[in-house]
């Protein structure tokens, strides 16, 4: 499998998916008008990775903003990770939120309660 690397833009996040290190990173802003196209390669990559994942996968999600158009796509990403965890592999999900950003913390809690894989909530400074 190949690394998938997408550079962040004004309305889309930086994405780094590395099958060798088992590291999955989504960082920045996710506020595009049409999120489905943006996330399709990410979800497809995870589908493929899930067939033969590393024993341990580390996921870093560090979003400053995301819109509701992205929210379903992010859930699709997390559901792929849930499937990997259910198959008996280690998944560490780090959910970053900026200091005082209770909404982003709550968003992480919402996702955690849906996918039933524990998140590590990490507060960062502004």
């Amino acid at each position, binding site marked *: 499998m190949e690394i998938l690397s997408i550079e962040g833009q004004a*309305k889309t996040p930086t994405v780094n998916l590395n099958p060798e290190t088992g590291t999955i990173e989504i960082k920045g802003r996710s*506020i595009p008008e049409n999120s489905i196209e943006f996330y399709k390669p990410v979800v497809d990559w995870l589908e493929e990775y899930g067939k033969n994942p590393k024993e341990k996968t580390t996921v870093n999600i560090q979003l400053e903003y995301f*819109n509701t*158009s992205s929210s*379903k796509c992010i859930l699709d990403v997390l559901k792929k990770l849930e499937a990997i965890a259910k198959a008996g592999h280690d998944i560490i999900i780090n959910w970053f939120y900026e200091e005082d950003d209770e909404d982003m913390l709550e968003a992480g809690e919402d996702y955690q309660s*849906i996918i039933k894989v524990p998140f590590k909530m990490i507060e960062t400074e502004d």
Partner: protein
Amino acid sequence: MNFSLDNWINNNKKGNVILFYKGNLTNDIITKLLDDLENNFENIDIPNKIRKKLYNSVVEGIQNIYHHGLNNILDNNDQNEKFGVVIIQKNNDTFEFIHGNFINNETITKLKSRLDQINSLSKDELKSLYKMILNNEEFSNKGGGGLGMIDIARKSGSKIDYEFINVNKNFTFYTFKIKI
């Protein structure tokens, strides 16, 4: 009396205007407006927390018009869809986000019932509804089940002040106001 868009704007645009836009909301224009909004935030006193809530609400509100807005039905030359008016302003210590766009009269009933439902729910009930729609409903790029409005209501913690102003037998000007 006939509906006048200029009168509506004059009646609603008051206080310290942070951003105003009237026109078609294309991808590029949305990017530009959000960029302008962030630049304008630099010049005003706004707590970080409020800045994020307001920015998020503006993204949702504007993108709702992007996905569902009609053309400016009062302007025969405007054949483009996604026409909207956006006002972001500060009144005393409160930030207001107002947007308006034209809709077909037949969409009023459904939209009104969703708005009334959102306004009737507590914070926890909104959270449950958000999660239920997120996890269960079919989505398209246009979103799903009014998730954007629920998100604005959750983040602002205030009720949506909406109005349907009749324009003619086919169209209505729909306005949405929220205080943050």
